[in-house]
C-alpha cells in the first residue's frame, strides 16, 4: 500500500502574531514545527504501513527550511520525503496550495490513500485536504477518528460529527483528513532519527511539476486577504444579585436592551 501524507510547517506558538501591514504571519524568531494535526496523519499512515506493508511518502509545500519537518516525519516512520518548493508558490491560498500539491501527487504516480491533518494550526482553514481530493477527483472523508477496516480497494471509516460519528465506506484511492482522536502519535526512535539525518529529501520546483504557472502562488489564488485582525476580547459578564424574583425582572429588562 502506498500512503501519501501531506504536512505543513507551522510556527510553534499559540500566540500567532500578524504583521499589521502585510497581513501575513510573523515567522521571525518563531521556531517551526510540524502542524500538530498532521502528526496524527503521520502516525496513522505509519500504523497502516506497519499493518499492511508498503511505504509512506510525506509531502510538503513550503520554503527550503520545511525540509526539517520532512526529516522529522522520516524519524517518525515515513519512508520517502518530497519538498515542493519555489518562490513562485509564495502567497498561495488554499486553492493554489491544493492545486500545487495535486500536481506533485500526480507526478509521484500511483497511490492508495492520502492522509492529511484536519487543518493547520496557523491558518485553521481545513480546506487544503478537501482541495487536493477535488483536484485529483478522488473521494474524501474529513474529520476521520477511526479507520475501522481497510482493504486494497476500499476503506470503512468513522467520521466525527458534533453529535457522534458517521460510518462511511469509500473506495480507494481516497483522501482522509484526521482528527486528534484517531491515535496517540509516537515519539521518534533513535534509529528513526539516524535514518532521518542521512535521508535524502526529493525537491521539486514549479518547472518540475509542469503545472500551469497561472494557477500558482499569489497569481493563482482566487482569494485575497484584505485584513487579518485579532477580535477585541469580550467584555466581562455581569452578575445580578438579590432574590430570584427581582433578578428575573432585572434580567428581562437587560435582555430587552440587547439585540437578540
Amino acid at each position, binding site marked *: 500500500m502506498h500512503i501519501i501524507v501531506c504536512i505543513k510547517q507551522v510556527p510553534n506558538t499559540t500566540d500567532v502574531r500578524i504583521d499589521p501591514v502585510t497581513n501575513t504571519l510573523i515567522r521571525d524568531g518563531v521556531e517551526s514545527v510540524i502542524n500538530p494535526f498532521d502528526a496524527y496523519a503521520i502516525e496513522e499512515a505509519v500504523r497502516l504501513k506497519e499493518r499492511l506493508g508498503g511505504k509512506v511518502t510525506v509531502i510538503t509545500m513550503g520554503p527550503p527550511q520545511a525540509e526539517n519537518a520532512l526529516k522529522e516525519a522520516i524519524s517518525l516512520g515515513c519512508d520517502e520525503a518530497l519538498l515542493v518548493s519555489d518562490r513562485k508558490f509564495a502567497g498561495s491560498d488554499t486553492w493554489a496550495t491544493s492545486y500545487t500539491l495535486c500536481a506533485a501527487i500526480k507526478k509521484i504516480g500511483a497511490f492508495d490513500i492520502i492522509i492529511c491533518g484536519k487543518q493547520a494550526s496557523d491558518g485553521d482553514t481545513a480546506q487544503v485536504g478537501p482541495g487536493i481530493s477535488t483536484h485529483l477527483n478522488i473521494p474524501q472523508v474529513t474529520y476521520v477518528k477511526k479507520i475501522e477496516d481497510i482493504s486494497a480497494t476500499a476503506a470503512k471509516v468513522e467520521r466525527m460529527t458534533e453529535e457522534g460519528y458517521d460510518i462511511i465506506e469509500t473506495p480507494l484511492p481516497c483522501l482522509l483528513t484526521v482528527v486528534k482522536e484517531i491515535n496517540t502519535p509516537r*515519539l*521518534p526512535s*533513535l*534509529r528513526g*532519527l*539516524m535514518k532521518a*539525518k542521512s535521508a535524502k529529501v526529493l525537491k521539486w520546483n514549479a518547472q518540475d511539476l509542469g503545472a500551469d504557472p497561472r494557477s500558482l502562488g499569489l497569481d493563482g489564488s482566487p482569494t485575497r486577504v484584505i485584513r487579518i485582525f485579532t477580535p477585541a476580547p469580550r467584555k466581562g459578564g455581569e452578575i445580578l444579585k438579590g432574590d430570584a424574583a427581582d433578578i428575573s425582572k432585572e434580567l428581562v429588562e437587560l435582555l430587552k436592551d440587547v439585540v437578540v
Partner: protein
Amino acid sequence: MDYLLTEQQVMIRDLARKIADEKIKPVAAHYDETEEFAWPIMKILAESDLFGVYIPEKYGGLGGGILDMCIVTEELSRACGGIALGFAGTGLGAIPILLYGSEEQKGRFLPDIAKGKRLAAFCITEAGAGSDAGSIKMNAVKDGDHYVLNGTKQWITNAGEAEIYTVIAMTDKTKGTRGASAFIVEKGTKGMDFGKKEKKLGIRASATREVIFTDCRVPAANLISKEGMGFIVALKTFDNSRPGVAAQAVGIAQGALDHAAQYARTRVQFGQPISGFQAIGHMLADMGTQVEAARALVYAAARMVDSGAKSVAKESAMAKLFASEVAMKVTTDAVQIFGGYGYMRDYPVEKYMRDAKITQIYEGTSQVQRNVIAANMIKESLKK
C-alpha cells in the same frame, strides 16, 4: 557547559529529555504515590531504542558505552529517579553479561535487552551481606549439566518485573571470595520465586523485592565466565555501573534545581521574587555549581570506563560518592527554597529529596566508596 558529546550522544540526550518531559514528568507523582511499576514508560523507552544505547551493534544495540547509558539515566532521572531505575537497573543486570558473558550468552540475552523486550536485574545483596558482600550465603552446587541454587537475595531492583537476572552465589565456600560464581537465571525457572515488594522512602516507582531460590536448577551454560570468578564479575560490574548511579544522582539533583530556580523566580515575599534575595541567590549558585561539577566528574569517569582503561575503580567510586552527596545536598536545599510548600507532597521537590537518599546507599554506600578510593590511592602511592 559543553561536554563535547558526539552527534549521536546529543541525539540520545535530546530524545531521553523529550521522553522525560513529555511522558514521565506528568506521571511521576502518580507512580510515586501508587508504587506501581511504570510499564507504559518502559514500553516507550523500548520503542525509542534507548535500552540499546550501550549495547554493541552486533547484538542489536546502538554501539555506545557507559557514557551513553549515563546520559539516558541522567535525563530520565530529572523527571523521576524511580522510573529511571527500570532502565538503569537493567543496565546493571546486563553489564556482567557484556563484560564476561560468552559469545553464546551475549547472543542469547543482549538482543532482547537492547530492544527493551526483557528487563534485567543484578542480584548480590543478602540479609547478612550488604557492604560486606563477601559474606553471601547463597550457594550453587553442580549437578550434572546444571547448578542447583539455594538462598535468598534481598532488595533486588527490578525483581519480579525483570526477566533476566545475574546472580552471585557460592560454588565453593571454603575458598571465600574466590569461591563465588555468577549465573544468568531467567524468570520462570522452576525454584525461583519473588518475595514481597518492599515499601521504600524514595524511588517508589522502582520495584524492589526478594528473589528466593529453592533447589533452582540453572543450566551450566548460564554460568558467567567460570567457577570462582563471581566476585571479580561483581566488582568489575560495579566499576562500570557506578557512573550510572552517579548519573542518576546528577539527574535527580538537576531536576530539583530546575524546580527550585523556577520557584525562586516566581515566589513573591516582601514584595519581590525571592530569587532577588542574596540568601536564595547564593544557595542557587552553590547548587548549580555543585551539580555541574558532579556532572563533569561523572562524564569523565564514564569516558574513562569507555576508553577501556585497566582500572576505573577509584574514578567510578569518586563519581558516585561526589554525585550522590551533591544530590542529597541540592535536593535538601531545593526543599528549603520552597519552604513550607517544599515539605508538602502536592509540590514536586520533597520527592527528589527522598529519591536522592538511595544514591548514597546502593551499589556501595558513600563510606564504601571512600574505602575503595582510599585503597586505590594507597595502592597507587606504593607504586610511585
